[in-house]
C-alpha cells in the first residue's frame, strides 16, 4: 500500500520535472532552436585549412568536375572508381602525324585526345577515390580548396536522370576525324542513334513532339558534314566506312565532286565491296551540291530563322572562337595567360569580342603586346561562323522534305470514336516507322478498320480527305 502511494508520488514528480524541461525549451526557443531555414540560410562553410599542404587533397564532397584541358587520358580515375561512374575514351594520333594534342597547365605534353569524358553523377557515391590518383589534378570535387577552380555546386537536381550524366570532353568531330578516329566516330554515332531511338519510344508520340525533334535534328546535323547524309542509305557497314573515309579524304584535299566520286569508287573497288546501294550513293554525290554553291537567297531567308533558333537553344559560348587558335602564339607565358583568360570568359559565357578585349587589356598592362599577337587577336575578333550556318540550312531542307510527305497525326484527333482513333494512330505510327507515304498509310488504315468491322462511310471519306 505504501508502495502504491510512493509510485503515484514518483510519477507526478518525474512528470512535473519533464514538463518543466519542455516548458523551458518552449520559453527559450530563440536561443535553443537548431533548425536552419535551408534555402534562405545555409550552413556556414567550415574552414578547410587542414594543417598541411591541403592543395593536394580534396576535403569536400560535392559534384565532380574535370578541367578537360588538363586531362591527359591516363584513365587512373576511371580505374579507381568503385561504381564505374566515370567513362573515358581516348584516341591516340597515328605515329607519323604531327597532330598537336596540346599541353596541360602543368606543362605535360598530352599524347592523346579525350573525345569522351562522362561522369554519371546519379551513380557517383562521393567517395573521392578518383581525385587522389589524378597526376594532373584535373578531376576534383568542386568547392572547398578548389574554390578558385570551380564554385561549389551541390544543388544540381535534374528532371531527367540522363541529364545527370555530365560530359566534359570538348573535342569536336572534325578533330576526331583529323586524328584518324573515323571508326570511333562511326561507332559513337551508331550508339547515339540507337539511344535516340530508345528515347523516342519514351511514351511521346512523334506527331506531338514534331517541333522539338525537328530543332534537335537541325542542331545535330549542323556538326556533321552534309556529304555523309548520302552515305547513310548504305546498309553495309564495311563499305559505308570505306566510302566515308574516301569522301573525307577528298573533301580535305578540296577535290571537286566528280573527283571525289571517282576516288570513292576506286576505294570501294579496291576492297571489292561494290553493291547497288553504293553505286546509287556515288551518283548522288555527283548530283549533290556543295553547300558553298547553294543559292545565296535561300540561305539568307533561313539565316534569320536559324539565328533565332541559335540564340534560344544554344548557349552563347558556342559563339566563342576555338582555343586552339591561340596555339600560334610563340611565347609560352603569354599563351598560358591568354588561355586562362579564355577559360574564364568561357565559363562566364562571354562573346568572342569581349574575351579578346580582355586579352588586349591584359597584354597592355603587362607590356607584352607585339604585332603578331595583336594581328592574331584582331583576326579572331571579326570572325564569323558563316560556314556553319549554311550547312545547317541545307541539311534542314533535306529533313523538311522528308517530313512533308506525311500528313500530321493531329488530324486524326477529329475522329470521335476513341477505339478507332487509337487503332488509326497505331497504324500511322507503324507506317511512319516504315517510311510509308500518306496514301499507303491511309490504305492500311482502311483495311485495318474493315478487319475489325468499324468501317463506315464517314471515316472513309475523312481518311481520303487527309491524302
Amino acid at each position: 500500500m505504501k508502495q502504491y502511494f510512493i509510485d503515484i508520488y514518483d510519477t507526478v514528480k518525474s512528470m512535473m520535472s519533464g514538463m518543466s524541461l519542455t516548458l523551458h525549451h518552449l520559453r527559450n526557443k530563440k536561443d535553443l532552436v537548431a533548425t536552419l531555414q535551408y534555402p534562405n540560410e545555409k550552413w556556414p562553410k567550415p574552414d578547410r585549412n587542414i594543417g598541411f599542404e591541403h592543395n593536394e587533397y580534396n576535403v569536400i564532397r560535392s559534384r565532380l568536375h574535370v578541367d578537360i584541358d588538363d586531362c591527359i587520358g591516363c584513365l587512373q580515375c576511371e580505374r579507381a572508381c568503385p561504381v564505374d561512374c566515370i567513362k573515358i575514351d581516348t584516341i591516340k594520333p597515328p605515329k607519323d602525324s604531327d597532330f598537336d594534342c596540346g599541353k596541360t597547365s602543368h606543362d605535360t605534353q598530352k599524347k592523346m585526345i579525350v573525345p569522351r569524358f562522362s561522369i554519371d553523377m546519379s551513380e557517383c557515391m562521393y567517395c573521392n577515390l578518383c581525385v587522389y590518383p589524378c597526376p594532373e589534378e584535373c578531376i576534383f570535387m568542386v568547392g572547398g580548396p578548389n574554390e578558385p577552380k570551380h564554385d561549389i555546386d551541390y544543388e544540381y537536381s535534374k528532371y531527367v536522370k540522363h541529364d545527370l550524366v555530365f560530359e566534359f570532353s570538348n573535342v569536336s568531330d572534325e578533330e576526331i576525324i583529323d586524328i584518324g578516329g573515323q571508326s570511333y566516330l562511326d561507332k559513337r554515332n551508331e550508339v547515339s542513334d540507337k539511344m535516340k531511338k530508345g528515347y523516342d519510344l519514351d511514351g511521346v508520340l512523334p506527331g506531338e513532339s514534331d517541333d522539338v525533334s525537328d530543332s534537335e535534328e537541325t542542331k545535330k546535323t549542323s556538326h556533321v558534314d552534309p556529304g555523309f547524309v548520302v552515305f547513310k542509305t548504305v546498309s553495309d557497314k564495311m563499305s559505308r566506312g570505306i566510302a566515308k573515309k574516301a569522301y573525307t579524304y577528298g573533301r580535305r584535299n578540296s577535290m571537286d565532286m566528280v573527283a571525289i566520286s571517282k576516288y570513292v569508287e576506286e576505294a570501294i573497288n579496291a576492297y571489292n565491296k561494290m553493291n547497288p546501294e553504293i553505286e546509287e550513293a556515288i551518283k548522288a554525290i555527283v548530283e549533290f551540291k556543295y553547300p558553298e554553291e547553294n543559292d545565296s537567297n535561300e540561305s539568307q531567308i533561313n539565316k534569320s530563322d536559324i539565328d533565332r533558333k541559335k540564340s534560344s537553344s544554344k548557349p552563347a559560348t558556342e559563339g566563342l572562337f576555338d582555343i586552339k587558335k591561340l596555339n600560334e602564339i610563340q611565347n609560352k607565358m603569354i599563351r598560358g595567360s591568354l588561355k586562362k583568360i579564355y577559360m574564364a570568359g568561357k565559363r562566364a559565357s562571354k562573346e568572342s569580342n569581349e574575351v579578346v578585349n580582355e586579352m588586349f587589356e591584359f597584354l597592355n598592362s603587362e607590356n607584352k603586346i607585339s604585332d603578331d599577337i595583336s594581328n592574331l587577336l584582331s583576326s579572331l575578333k571579326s570572325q564569323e561562323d558563316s560556314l556553319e550556318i549554311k550547312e545547317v540550312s541545307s541539311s534542314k531542307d533535306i529533313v523538311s522534305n522528308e517530313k512533308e510527305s506525311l500528313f500530321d497525326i493531329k488530324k486524326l484527333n477529329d475522329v470521335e470514336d476513341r477505339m478507332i482513333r487509337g487503332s488509326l494512330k497505331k497504324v500511322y505510327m507503324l507506317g511512319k516507322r516504315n517510311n510509308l507515304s500518306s496514301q499507303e498509310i491511309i490504305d492500311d488504315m482502311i483495311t485495318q478498320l474493315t478487319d475489325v468491322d468499324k468501317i463506315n462511310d464517314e471515316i472513309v471519306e475523312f481518311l481520303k480527305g487527309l491524302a
Partner: protein
Amino acid sequence: MSEKIINNISKQFNNSIEYSKENNCIFVINPDKWLEIATFILNDNDLKFDYLMCITGYDLGESSRFGVAYNFYSTSLKHYIEIRVEIDEDIEISSIANLWNAANWHERETFDLYGIKFSNHPDMKRILLPEDWEGHPLRKDYKTPDYYNGMPVPKDKSYWE
C-alpha cells in the same frame, strides 16, 4: 595460452586434426568428428569457448571444395581459436546450432550463399536471399541469372553505353 589450447584439443582428437598453425590458433578439422570437438571445446573447463563469433564459408575451387571457418572466443578465459572444416561438395557438416544458438543464423547464411548443408539444423532455409532464388551466389562458378520470376535481371546501364 595457444599452446595449451592446442595440447588440449590434440590430446583428445589427435586423428581428426589435419594440421594446425600454432601461432594463429588455427585448426583444420575432419568433418566427421566436428560435433564431438565442438562439444568438447564448449564444455571443457580449460577451454570454455562459450562465444561463437563468426562462421565463414569459403569456396576453394579445389578437390575439397568448400570450407567453413569457425571463430570462437571465451568470454571468461579470454582466448581465441579458429577452427576450419573443409569438405567436398556433397558432404554435410553437422550443425552446432544446438550448442551455440548464434550458429543458427550464421549457418543459414552459409547455406544461403554457398549451398553448404548442415545436418540436424533446426530451421535450414534461406535467410538473406528470397526463398525462391536459384543457386548460391558466393560460389565461384555462380552465374548471374538472366531472369528472376520472369523479370529480367539488369546487367548494364542501358543509357550509359
